[in-house]
């Protein structure tokens, strides 16, 4: 039995502890539900992350291949020259959303996918291999943004599941048993104190009765002595 250190075995403390154990038990239930909910969410996000990661790898392989074809057909000299003409760089916007109390980022990218004539270079003097490489890299950037969001959500969920699990375990195996033990301890102590006071009262009562009997005997003896005289 582990009693919470410094606890005074009083009725007020007992009432407070009973109230506390109710809160702890409710909290425990809620945290267990949160943990289970987060786990369900985690597996959903995990599946999504797997798909997104696969798509990302595929997009990367495709983009590299397209760039290599463009390098081969047009040469790095052309590719580097054309790359200078980039008109608008993609902008990333960060906001947040809430999944069961876990704040996760929401990443949106702007100006990633461009139309063929919006890339800044002239169409006549360039080739379709460059379009295809640019297109593949734009898709890749989109996938990177999605993967960044999904994988950050996954990391945040894992961290929160860990801490929720620790809280549930602490409540289940430490806080609630300790409070329960302390309540039991205080209950025993109070019962003991009750028994003590009953004994004390009985003893006092016995003493009082003894004293009353002695006084009565004394009064009777005095009355007998007065009659004789």
């Amino acid at each position, binding site marked *: 039995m582990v009693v919470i250190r410094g606890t005074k075995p009083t009725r007020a403390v007992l009432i407070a502890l009973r109230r506390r154990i109710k809160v702890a038990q409710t909290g425990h239930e809620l945290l267990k539900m949160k943990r289970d909910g987060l786990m369900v969410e985690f597996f959903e996000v995990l599946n999504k992350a797997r798909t997104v990661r696969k798509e990302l790898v595929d997009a990367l392989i495709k983009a590299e291949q397209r760039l290599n074809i463009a390098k081969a057909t047009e040469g790095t000299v052309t590719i580097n020259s054309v790359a200078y003409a980039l008109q608008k760089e993609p902008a990333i916007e960060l906001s947040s959303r809430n999944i069961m109390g876990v704040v996760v980022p929401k990443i949106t990218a702007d100006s990633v996918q461009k139309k063929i004539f919006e890339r*800044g270079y*002239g169409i006549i003097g360039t080739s379709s291999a460059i379009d295809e490489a640019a297109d593949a890299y734009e898709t890749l950037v989109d996938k990177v943004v999605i993967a960044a969001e999904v994988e950050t959500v996954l990391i945040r969920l894992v961290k929160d599941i860990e801490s929720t699990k620790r809280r549930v375990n602490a409540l289940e195996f430490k806080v609630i048993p300790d409070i329960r033990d302390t309540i039991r301890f205080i209950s025993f102590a109070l019962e003991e104190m009750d028994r003590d006071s009953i004994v004390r009262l009985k003893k006092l009562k016995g003493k009082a009765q003894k004293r009353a009997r002695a006084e009565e005997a004394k009064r009777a003896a005095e009355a007998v002595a007065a009659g004789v005289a």
Partner: protein
Amino acid sequence: MPVLRLPKFGKPVKYAYITGRVRAMKTKLIPGEMYQRMMAMDVSEIARYLEETQYKDEIDTLSKDYSGTELIEHATFANLAKIYGKLLAVSIDEPSFLILEYLRRWDIWNIKTILRGKFYGADETEIAKYLVPAGELNMEYLSELAKKESIQEVISALEGSDLAPALANYDGKSLAPIENALDKLYYFRMERAVGGTLSVGGGLLLKYVRKEIDIKNLITLFRMNKAGVEASIIQENLIPGGKLYEDLNRLAGQPFGEFLRSLEGYPFWSSISDIATPDIEAISRVEARLKAYLIRYAWALSNYHPLSILPVLGYMVSKETEVSNIRKIVRGKEAGLPAELIEEQVVVA
């Protein structure tokens, strides 16, 4: 469009000397069967082989700045610029004029690179790495242009030149309009210049230039129709001129399947019919076939009149194709591209 004042040349124009020089220079080109052997070599073996060819000097000179595929690519471009410079140096009168008009594409290329570099904010040494002085403008002039602080300064420096009208429309936001204007100006000049020659072979050269414009426009249509761009925007990107301009102009903005059906029956269709399907993923394959078709057309024309500009055109196209083939093989091998893909891109006579 500016009016091009054509120089007047006395008749008959003598092509014997320049065609003789070209015949001699042609012997130094890499033979067609060598590409197959190069496909089986690794990059260092290809570099060693190129050291035994006319690329030796450029490889030796540039080996302190570059290595591997970078070295081969820069060396082949440097050699191309040297050879074209030599062609210009050994030609006079009309051949010189026509060669220069043809090579102005490299001036346009270099001006575009400088403008792009300035747009991006690259420094002059970085920009200089990507210049190929194979046209009229030499490296010194181009380096001076690259040293300018801004695009506006580059445009100001070119004021008074033939390129000025094309550069005047710069809106400060995108280079695409002036890049297209420069390319259109090049083809406008080329068509006018070739159209003005009365020499033997001039008509066929004009046919080639028009064919090149048609192929360029066709590639633009493939790229933009596949991307679903609206007709008016595509039409802005078509080069005026060419034999099929009106026809191609009508095909702008058509649904891709319908566009492909409309191409059936044209002379170039047989070279792309097996891969030009509505579900084609990479237009670059069609582009490679169309470019190969144009190169073969130039080679076919080059044999018509031995003492005309046509063998010179054939040589210039062959030289550019050689540089391009070497780069495709080397870059393809470096990137581990499948051999069939490299073979598809390499154009051999």
